[in-house]
């Protein structure tokens, strides 16, 4: 009986398996940031424990760091306390840290892959739900809570019940101008926010194979938004080409041994999944959210839905509450929605390819009167690469704000927030109430839609700029 990709990677990491208990899983890489780690280190200290494998641990500052004046002391005292606490803990426990101002600083899920630390067949955890991003390389990667962070620090393992497996097969190819982001937003709308619950999902099929690593990361990143334990994509030549030459990638004979092993990490032809979903890529169009959870989305060309059209009572109530919060009229064309702020960035869409795409669309245009465009690179490396390519000039000439690296407005823990009732088109991953600032209204969009919206001032796709 064949095994799925997820089962192969899982089996390779079982330290101990006892009937009636979760498997004890070895963790290859533990990523850490300032928000979910302080209490974990505190727990170690209280129990007199050490970090078992500092050499499999990496910390960066991302969630609440400022994206302006980052060479100055952090103004917000609480953010400063968290960052200072991480620095103190990293020094005390011997953990490698990339602090604000360091060339490798950035969003933890951008930094891991760009350093070459994210590789196929690994188990990767972090106290952040978007750890699913790393599954794009054929790793089992998932978010954990702070007491699990403490557990991994102390033991380099985690007790985990083996999840079920699901295949999402995306046949055909995505139409011109339709991105990985539209694909995942479409999928979440189809399945709802709980559709993936309990599953490690493997994305496969022609449209997935055709995606760049950046696009694959966008898809896996938002696996958590439809409730999946993790998302994965089998490694292939695209994956190997991305990793080769990265600072922490294997070299020489180690590289050959690694690639030989990585090539075995595919689902066997006779393996079975617990569930399968098949999607036709050709029918996907630019997709945006209108509500307050990522499952409340629609094609950009559609109208804001009418709550009474929902058959399920909970869906109807949720839609009513969402429209009220979002300040939208049922039946209003989505393209008529005026946007105050456009945010390009986050672990979903803050990589170099995303910035290139945004710049290509913005070039020769101006940001609309009354709209602001915030471009926040996912890491310092992404920022420097963009500047080398002159993308920063394109953004600044168009009237955008070109910022430093971090999570920024994705979750508004730093000064980059929306005002009450301010409306954003955001390339990030969550449109929850108040996520980007108290009372703020978020529409999740792809990079091309974000860029076109910045120019038009209303939700738009690049086709609307012609």
């Amino acid at each position, binding site marked *: 009986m064949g095994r799925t990709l997820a089962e192969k990677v899982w089996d390779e990491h079982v330290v101990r398996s006892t009937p009636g208990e979760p498997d004890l899983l*070895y963790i290859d890489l533990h990523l850490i940031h300032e928000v979910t780690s302080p*209490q974990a280190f505190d727990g170690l200290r209280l129990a007199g424990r050490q970090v078992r494998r500092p*050499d499999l641990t990496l910390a960066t500052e991302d969630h609440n760091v400022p994206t302006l004046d980052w060479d100055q002391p952090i103004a917000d005292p609480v953010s400063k306390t968290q960052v200072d606490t991480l620095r103190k803990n990293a020094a005390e426990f011997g953990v490698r840290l990339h602090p604000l101002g360091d060339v490798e600083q950035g969003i933890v899920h951008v930094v891991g892959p760009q350093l070459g630390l994210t590789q196929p067949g690994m188990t990767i955890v972090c106290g952040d739900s978007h750890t699913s991003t790393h599954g794009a390389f054929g790793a089992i990667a998932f978010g954990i809570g702070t007491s699990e962070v403490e557990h991994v620090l102390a*033991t380099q393992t985690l007790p985990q019940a083996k999840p079920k497996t699901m295949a999402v097969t995306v046949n055909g190819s995505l139409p011109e101008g339709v991105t990985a982001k539209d694909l995942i937003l479409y999928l979440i709308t189809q399945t709802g926010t709980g559709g993936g619950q309990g599953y490690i999902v493997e994305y496969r099929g022609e449209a997935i194979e055709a995606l760049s690593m950046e696009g694959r990361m966008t898809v896996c990143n938002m696996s958590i938004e439809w409730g999946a334990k993790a998302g994965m994509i089998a490694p292939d030549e695209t994956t190997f080409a991305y990793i080769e030459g990265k600072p922490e990638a294997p070299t020489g004979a180690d590289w050959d041994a690694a690639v030989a092993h990585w090539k075995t990490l595919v689902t066997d032809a006779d393996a079975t999944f617990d569930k399968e979903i098949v999607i036709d890529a050709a029918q996907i169009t630019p997709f945006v959210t209108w509500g307050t*959870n990522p499952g409340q989305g629609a094609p950009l060309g559609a109208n804001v839905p009418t709550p009474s059209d929902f058959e399920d009572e909970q869906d109807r109530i949720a839609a009513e509450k969402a429209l009220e919060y979002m300040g939208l009229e049922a039946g209003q064309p989505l393209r008529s929605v005026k946007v105050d702020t456009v945010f390009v960035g986050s672990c979903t869409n803050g990589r170099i390819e995303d910035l290139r795409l945004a710049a290509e669309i913005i070039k020769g245009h101006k940001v609309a009167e009354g709209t602001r465009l915030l471009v926040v690179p996912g890491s310092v490396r992404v920022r420097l690469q963009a500047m080398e390519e002159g993308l920063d000039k394109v953004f600044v000439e168009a009237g955008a704000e070109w910022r430093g690296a971090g999570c920024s407005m994705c979750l508004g823990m730093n000064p980059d927030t929306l005002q009450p009732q301010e409306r954003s088109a955001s390339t990030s991953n969550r449109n929850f109430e108040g996520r980007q600032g108290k009372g703020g209204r978020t529409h999740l969009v792809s990079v091309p839609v974000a860029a076109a919206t910045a120019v038009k001032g209303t939700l738009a796709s690049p086709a609307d700029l012609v």
Partner: protein
Amino acid sequence: MEKFTSHTGTALPLRRSNVDTDQIIPAVYLKRVTRTGFEDGLFAAWRNDPEFVANKPEYQGVSILVAGPDFGTGSSREHAVWALMDYGFKVVLSSRFADIFRGNSGKAGLLSVPVEQDVIEQLWAAIEADPTTQITVDLEARTVTCGDLVAPFQIDDYTRHRLLNGLDDIGITLGNEADIAAYEATRPRFKPVTQRA
């Protein structure tokens, strides 16, 4: 961790689905570095509204939360569990929990109990008719009892065992340290490290 065998108390009816962890505790409260004192952040945005159910005098002192489906979705923040516990909740009932939230709650000693939506509806009706209604959640028997209503619930044996005995996960794992060391000896050398000796 405190042992959990059975709990009886009054309950808060939260008639909302998809209560994500940003609603349970907004990100602004995550900036703290302490382990306790998160009760002021619980449902912070909703509690600004005097009409919000938790603000009503009849629902003070509750220890059981009865919520709509898909409770605890979104961000992995464990602060959501701490905020619920600091506020005084011992148990959350919902027809469906997000995986990370359920994992986090089991580790901290908050019991999340999955029951059918039909049971939730009956509990909501009973609590709203009489806010002093007592609900009993018996982990030993795996049942929720409210008046004549007795609803069984599922919980995996391992989490139940840990909660019943108040066992700390790390201590259990370190008991198997030899297995971890043996596994580490077999890891391939091409696996990456973040620092070299």
